C-alpha cells in the first residue's frame, strides 16, 4: 500500500508591501521632520534576514535639547491650556488612525523586530490602539480618577522604550502622559525604531499641536541626554535593570518623577491539581511568546514534584509542534531573535546552563540559514543556585525546577531580585489567594499567563522597578495631586 502523503500547511508569507518603510527617517521635533544636527544615521536591519530596512537619525545633545524645548513650549502654549475634552479627542484620533493603519504597523513591527506576524497583528497593534482608546476616555474624567483632589500635569515627560514591544510600549507611555496633560519626548530602542516613527506620522496626521509629542532616535547616549535634561519633569523608562539603576543614579536629588519597568524572572507555578493541558499551553505561552523577549515571561517554571515527569513530557511534546521560522509567515509560532547581540547573550546562557550541569533539551526544528534564530529550549534539573534560574535570559529558554509544598514554592518564587510577574496553576481557589498574597510580584496570573488589558495596571516590585502603567494606577506617575 502506498504511504499516504502527510498533510502539511501552506506557506503563507505576508507581503512586505504594506509596511511602506522609507529609506531614511529624520527626527520628529516640533511637529516637523528635522535632520539630525549630528548628520549621522544608523542602519535598522531585519533580524530574520539581516537585510537593511532603513536609515535612522542619531539625535545628539543639540537635538535632544531641541526636542525638549519644543515639548516645553507646546506644554505652555497649547497642551496645558486646551480643555481636557479636546485633549481626549486628539488621543481618540490617534487610536483610530492606528486602527486604520493596523496592517502597515503590524508588518513593519514584524520586519523590524522579528516577532511573528500573528503576534504583531493579533496582539501588539490592537493592544496599542486600545491603550490610546482607554486613556482618551480618562482625559476629561480625572476628577473621578482622583476624587476631591486636583490632578495637575507635570510638564515634559521624557520616555524611553525597549525593543521587545516597540509600538505597544510607546502607547503605554504616550497615552497616559497626553491624557493627563503632559507633553512628550520619546526615544525608542535603537534596533526597533520604525513603528514609533510611524506613530510620529500618525500623530502628525492626527494634527496634534506641534511639539506635544516629539520622537527622537538614537542609542543609549541619546537616552542619557534625555534623562539628564533639566527641563524634563518626568522620566519613564522600560528596559534593563542595569540601565534602570544608572537612570536612578542620574535622577537622584533632582525634582524629576521617575517610573521604571525593568527586568523579571517570572515564576510560573504548576500544582499537581492544575488543569494540566491548559497549564502546558500557559507555560508555552509564558516563555515562548515573542521569542521570550518579554520582561514578564514565565522563565522559571516550578512544577510540583509528583507530576513533574508527566508534565515535562507533555511540555516537550507540545513544543515539538511549534513552528520556528520566517516571522512574516502567518503559520510561524516563534520568529527571529531581535538582534545578533541578543542571540549571543542567549547562546551564552545556554552554555552556562549546560556547564552548570542542568539537563538540556531543545526541539529538532530546522532553523533558517540567515537571520538570528534560536530553538525553543528547556533546562530540567535546575536549582535556585543555577545562574539560568537567577538571571534574566530574555530568550526562548525555560528553566524547570521542582517543589513539594506551598510554602516552599512561595519562598523559592520570592527568592529573586526581581518581582514582576508570576503564574499560579491550581484548581483550588484558596491556594490562589494565599499565594497571590504572599508572592511579591506586580502581576500574578491564575490559571492563565500573559493576559493584558489597558484597564489593568502593570509594574514591578524590587529590582523589576516601580510605578504602574495601565489602568487608573497608570495615571498616577503623570500627575501631581493637590
Amino acid at each position, binding site marked *: 500500500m502506498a504511504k499516504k502523503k*502527510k*498533510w502539511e*500547511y501552506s506557506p503563507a508569507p505576508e507581503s512586505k508591501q504594506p509596511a511602506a518603510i522609507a529609506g531614511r527617517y529624520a527626527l520628529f521635533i516640533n511637529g516637523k521632520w528635522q535632520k539630525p544636527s549630528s548628520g549621522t544615521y544608523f542602519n535598522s536591519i531585519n533580524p530574520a534576514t539581516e537585510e537593511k530596512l532603513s536609515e535612522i537619525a542619531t539625535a545628539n545633545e543639540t537635538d535632544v535639547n531641541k526636542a525638549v524645548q519644543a515639548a516645553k513650549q507646546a506644554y505652555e502654549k497649547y497642551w496645558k491650556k486646551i480643555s481636557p475634552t479636546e485633549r481626549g479627542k486628539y488621543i481618540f484620533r490617534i487610536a483610530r488612525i492606528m486602527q486604520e493603519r493596523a496592517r502597515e504597523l503590524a508588518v513593519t513591527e514584524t520586519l523590524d523586530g522579528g516577532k511573528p506576524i500573528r503576534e504583531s497583528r493579533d496582539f501588539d497593534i490592537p493592544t496599542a490602539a486600545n491603550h490610546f482608546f482607554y486613556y482618551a476616555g480618562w482625559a476629561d474624567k480625572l476628577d473621578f480618577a482622583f476624587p476631591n483632589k486636583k490632578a495637575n500635569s507635570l510638564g515634559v515627560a521624557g520616555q524611553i522604550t525597549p525593543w521587545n514591544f516597540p509600538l505597544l510600549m510607546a502607547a503605554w507611555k504616550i497615552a497616559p502622559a497626553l491624557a493627563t496633560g503632559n507633553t512628550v519626548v520619546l526615544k525608542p530602542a535603537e534596533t526597533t525604531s520604525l513603528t514609533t516613527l510611524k506613530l510620529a506620522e500618525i500623530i502628525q496626521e492626527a494634527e496634534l499641536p506641534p511639539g506635544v509629542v516629539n520622537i527622537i532616535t538614537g542609542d543609549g547616549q541619546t537616552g542619557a541626554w534625555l534623562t539628564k535634561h533639566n527641563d524634563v519633569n518626568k522620566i519613564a523608562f522600560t528596559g534593563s535593570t542595569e540601565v534602570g539603576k544608572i537612570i536612578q543614579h542620574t535622577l537622584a536629588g533632582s525634582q524629576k518623577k521617575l517610573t521604571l519597568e525593568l527586568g523579571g524572572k517570572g515564576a510560573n507555578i504548576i500544582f499537581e491539581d*492544575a*488543569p494540566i493541558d491548559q497549564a502546558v499551553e500557559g507555560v508555552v505561552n509564558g516563555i515562548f511568546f515573542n521569542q521570550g523577549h518579554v520582561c514578564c515571561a514565565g522563565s522559571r517554571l516550578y512544577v510540583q514534584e509528583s507530576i513533574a515527569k508527566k508534565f515535562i513530557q507533555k511540555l516537550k511534546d507540545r513544543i515539538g509542534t511549534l513552528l520556528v521560522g520566517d516571522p512574516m509567515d*502567518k503559520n510561524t509560532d516563534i520568529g527571529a531573535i531581535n538582534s545578533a547581540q541578543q542571540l549571543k547573550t542567549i547562546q551564552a546562557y545556554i552554555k552556562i546552563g549546560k556547564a552548570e550541569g542542568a539537563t538540556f533539551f531543545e526541539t529538532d526544528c530546522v532553523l533558517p540559514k540567515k537571520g538570528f534564530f534560536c530553538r525553543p529550549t528547556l533546562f530540567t534539573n535546575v536549582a535556585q543556585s543555577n545562574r539560568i534560574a537567577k538571571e534574566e535570559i530574555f530568550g526562548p529558554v525555560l528553566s524547570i525546577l521542582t517543589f513539594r509544598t506551598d510554602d516552599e514554592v512561595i519562598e523559592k518564587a520570592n527568592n529573586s531580585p526581581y518581582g514582576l510577574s508570576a503564574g499560579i496553576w491550581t484548581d483550588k481557589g484558596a491556594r490562589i489567594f494565599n499565594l497571590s498574597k504572599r508572592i511579591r510580584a506586580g502581576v500574578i496570573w491564575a*490559571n*492563565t499567563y500573559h493576559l493584558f488589558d489597558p484597564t489593568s495596571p502593570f509594574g514591578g516590585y524590587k529590582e523589576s522597578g516601580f510605578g504602574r502603567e495601565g489602568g487608573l494606577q497608570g495615571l498616577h506617575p503623570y500627575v501631581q495631586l493637590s
Partner: protein
Amino acid sequence: MTVKKPVLNPQILNHPPVEQTGVEERSVRFTKRSIKGPSKMQGLELVLSMIDLTTLEGKDTPGKVNQLCTKAKHLHDHIPGLPTVAAICVYPSMVSVAKKALEGTKINVASVATAFPSGQSSLRIKLADTRLAVEQGADEVDMVISRGKFHAGEYAYVFDEIAAVKAACDKARLKVILETGELGTLDQVRKASTIAIAAGADFIKTSTGKIQPAATLPVTLVMLETIRDHFQKTGKKVGMKPAGGISKSKLALHYLVMVKETLGDVWLDKHWFRFGASSLANDVLMQVAKEKAGNYQSPNYFSID
C-alpha cells in the same frame, strides 16, 4: 467460558481539571494556520473521506435512505477521483436498506442505537436495540450514554452500560455519544470521555445532533486530549467523531488542524476521525470544484439527497 467483564476503576475519575478559558484560547490558535492551494485540496479530500453522511429523522423511509446512499456513492461525478464518504449513519430500522444499497462498496453502515437520542430506557431495551442494528448488518454502532445517570453521579452504571453495549456490538465498532451539550462543563466532558474510553469505546463522539450546542472546537479539544492521554498511557488508539453543527469546509479544516496538532498525523484517517454531518459534504464539494475551476459554481450543480 466466561469473558472477564470490565469494571470501572474509580481512579480514572481523578482526571486533571479543565480550564475553559485556556481551552478556548488554544482552540482559536488552530483556526490561524494557513491552508490553501494543494494543502487545501488535500485537506478537503480528507474531510470528504471522513464524513458519516447522516439522516436521523422520524420521517426516514427506504426511499430517502436509498437516495442518500446513492449520494454517498456518487458525491460529485463531474470531478473524477474523489473519495467516497466513510459511512452512512441511520436508525436501526434503516440498516438493512442502507446495507443493500451500499453492497459492493467500501462505505460502512453506521446505526445509532440504545434508545437514541435520549437514552432514557432500560439496559435490556438498549441491548436489544444494539443487537437489532448489528444483526441487520451495521458495521458501526453509535450509542448514547445515560446522561441522567451521569449527572446523578452513577458513573459505574454509565460505565457498565457502555461495556455491555460494546459486548453486544460483536465485530461492529462502537462510537459512544456523550451529548456534550447536556453535560454542562468541560470538566464533565473530560470525565465522560474518560469513562467511555475505559469502558471500551472505539470512538468517542460529541453529539446526537438533536441538542444544541453540538460539536464545538473546545469540546472536541478536551475529548482529543483525553484520547491522547489514554494513548500515551496504554498505547491504544481511540477514534473521535465531532457531530452536529459542522456544515462548512473551513470549520472542518480547522478540526483537522486540531487533530494534527493534538494527536498527530496518524489520526488523520477515516479509521480514527469522522465528521457526523449531513450538509458538510456539499460545501466541501463546492470548495473542491472551486479549487479546480478557479471560481465558485452554483449550488444547483450539487445534488441534495
